[in-house]
């Protein structure tokens, strides 16, 4: 029983820190509300979709910004998608970079765009590793026979 309590406390502390540090916002909580016995893997499924989609978008962005003649409309379209998906799962820091990124697109500022791409990559991979840690903690709790605390 001790192990479960310990793991649960770890989970709560970790989740709280993610919110506090701005990695996650309330939308992530909303996602968890949509998970239940009939859809026990909803959050993981959406997040995995997000990972797949984001990595494609980041590649597309890199390619688009490498062109001789950059099509800023196209770049903006990709960033818009990225902003939408990150916002939908509560990936706040990624979303915020996308907001800045769109401004540089509007200004057709190549340097600004390239910087934002780097930042977006950085924030995305950071977010990815943190979410994977979170999911691992959940699995450990479940494996030990405990239940995952609901964060409100």
């Amino acid at each position, binding site marked *: 029983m001790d192990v479960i309590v310990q793991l649960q406390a770890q989970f709560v502390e970790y989740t709280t820190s993610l919110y506090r540090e701005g990695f996650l916002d309330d939308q992530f909580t909303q996602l968890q*509300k*949509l998970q239940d016995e009939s859809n026990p893997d909803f959050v993981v*499924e*959406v997040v995995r979709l*997000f990972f797949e*989609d984001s990595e494609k978008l980041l590649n597309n962005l890199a390619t688009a910004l490498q062109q001789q003649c950059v099509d800023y409309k196209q770049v903006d379209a990709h960033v818009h998608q990225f*902003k*939408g998906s990150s*916002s*939908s799962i509560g990936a706040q820091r990624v979303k915020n970079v996308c907001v800045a990124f769109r401004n540089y697109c509007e200004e057709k500022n190549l340097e600004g765009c390239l910087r934002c791409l780097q930042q977006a990559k950085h924030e995305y991979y950071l977010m990815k590793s943190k979410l994977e840690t979170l999911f691992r903690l959940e699995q450990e709790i479940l494996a030990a026979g405990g239940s995952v605390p609901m964060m409100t």
Partner: protein
Amino acid sequence: MGMAAESQFHVLAVDDNIIERKLIERLLKTSSYQVTTVDSGSKALEFLGLDEHGQSNPNQPSVSPNNHQEVEVNLIITDYCMPGMTGYDLLKKIKESTSLRNIPVVIMSSENVPSRITRCLEEGAEEFFLKPVRLSDMNKLRPHMMKTKVKDQKPEIQEEEEEEEEETPEVFQSPQHHHHHQQQQLSNNNNKRKATEEGLSPDRTRPRYSGLTVVSN
């Protein structure tokens, strides 16, 4: 036909972003709606039985060869910003279609642009949701779908739901219409006033099904 009251409402969700599609699907299913998702406006029209030019096509999933409704769509919820056909373009096409215009349409957008919101409501959208959409937003859909269902089942008291809201002001504005005109025209007079609140169009009060039978007049 008597089963209609028990069956779930069916919502068609349109969004080009895969994550947002998954989210809206889950939100709708959690709220006990049946859901079909498509990734573009043109696919939505295809599903609804129209081609891109707004022409009816009976050989589509939602309309059987006999032109009887197989899959009824009670509400369409669509993203605004989509490549090709935007949510606004889709809304227009639906409202221009004799067979589909009674289906309530809701627009979603990540951008809070007042002129955009007004434009959509004026074109006939029932609601405009800011993304990310939440579970509480799903409750706002039911009243719009209920209105259409009531019309389907009880055409002779079609006006009842809307009369309650419109009648009182109507008495102050033009009491003569109340006595001299048909009930349909009474609602016609109100459509402009209600435009920004509810997006009612003149045809909404006629006894039509929620969308898929091809009506030949």
